[in-house]
C-alpha cells in the first residue's frame, strides 16, 4: 500500500489525494478511494475533483506536491 499523498490543491487550500488514486486509479487502493468519492466518504471540492479526474485519466504521473 502506498502511503504517499499528493496535494492537488494549493498551500492555502490543500487537497490531499492518495497517489494511487491519481496514477493507478484501477489499483485496489485507487479504486477504493474513487469509490469513497462516489459515496461521499471522501470530499473533493469541485475544482479539485475536475483536476483529479483529469490527472487520473492520463497514464502518467502528477505534478502535485507529495507528502508521506
Amino acid at each position, binding site marked *: *500500500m502506498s*502511503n504517499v*499523498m499528493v496535494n492537488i490543491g494549493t498551500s492555502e487550500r490543500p*487537497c*490531499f*489525494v*492518495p497517489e494511487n*488514486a491519481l496514477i493507478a*486509479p*484501477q489499483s*485496489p487502493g*485507487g*479504486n*477504493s*478511494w*474513487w*469509490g*469513497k*468519492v*462516489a*459515496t*461521499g*466518504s*471522501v*470530499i*473533493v*471540492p*469541485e475544482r479539485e*475533483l*475536475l483536476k483529479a*479526474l483529469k490527472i*487520473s*485519466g492520463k497514464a502518467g504521473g502528477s505534478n502535485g506536491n507529495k507528502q508521506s
Partner: protein
Amino acid sequence: MEINKVKVSAPGKIILSGEHAVVYGYPEILCAVDRRLSVEIEEAGVGFDVQPIEGKALVEYAIEVVRTKLNVSGLRNLKIRIDSQIPIGSGLGSSAAFAVAITAAFFEFLKLPRSLKKINEIAYEIEKKQHGTPSGGDNTVSAYGGFLLYRKETEVFKVFSPLKTKVFPSIFLINSGKPEENTGEMVKAVKNFVLKSPGQAEMIFKEMEKITRSFLRYLSGEEQNFGDLITRNERLLEELGVVSLKTKTLIQKIEAIGGSAKISGAGGMKENSGIILAYHQDPKVLVKLANEEKLDMFRVKLGEKGVKNEQG
C-alpha cells in the same frame, strides 16, 4: 500476573440512498450493518506482531495517531490481531471500522474512560491519514451505529444527523462482481453527465433527495413502502447511467418475483456493478432465486450497534 488483553469490534456500513448525488450536495443515508471488524490487542513481552501481516502499515499509522492524540508513549511491545467480516474495498466501510475499532481498543487497553466522541475524532484522524479528506460519515456511523443522514452543505460545512429509528430492516447484499471500469471512471461518467445535461441531472438528484426523505419517514415508522423506495432509487441510478445492462437484467428478475433491488455504491456500466442491495418481504423467495442464479448473496441487518467491547 494477568496479561492486559482487550478485544473491540466496530460495524461496517452501507449507503441506503444518495450515492453519487451526495457529491453534488444532496443528502444520503448511511447505516451500520451487522458485518463487523474486530481488533484484539495483547501485551507482548518483546516485539510487535500484527496479524494479518498485511495490516501492519495501517496499524502503525493508527498507533502514531493514537500516541499523538492521547499524548501517550510506548505502545511498542504488542500483539495485535484483526478479524474482519467486512470485505475490503467493497464500499462497506472496512477502513473506517478498522479506525474506530483500533482506537476504541486502545482506550480499553490503556484503561481510559470510553468516550465515543473522542474515539470518533481519533478514528477520523486515522481516516485522514489514509484518504486525504474523508467526510467523517463512515467513522461516525461505525462508532455510533444506527442510521446517519449526511449532507455536504458547502465544501467545508457538513451536516450529520443521527436518526432515531423504529424500523431495522433486514436486506440482502449481492456481489454482482467487480466492475470492468474503475470507480474513477464512474465518478467521471456522472460528472460528464452533470456537465452535459445539468437540468436533467438536477432533476434526478432532486428526485433522489425526495426518496432519501421518504426513507427517513419509513425508518421512523411513518411509511411502509421500503421496497418501492428501493425500486424508485434504482431507476434514477439507471438514468444516471451507472448501472450495467447485466445488472439491470438481474434487478428485473428480482422485481419479477416481487422484490426490489438497487446498486449500493459507485456502480458499473459495462458488465458488473459491484454491490447490489436487495429486499423482499419474504426472504425465502430471494434465497431461492440466489440459489438458482448462483448469486454471491448474504443477509445483513441495518442499524447495527456501533463500536462495542467483545470481552464483556
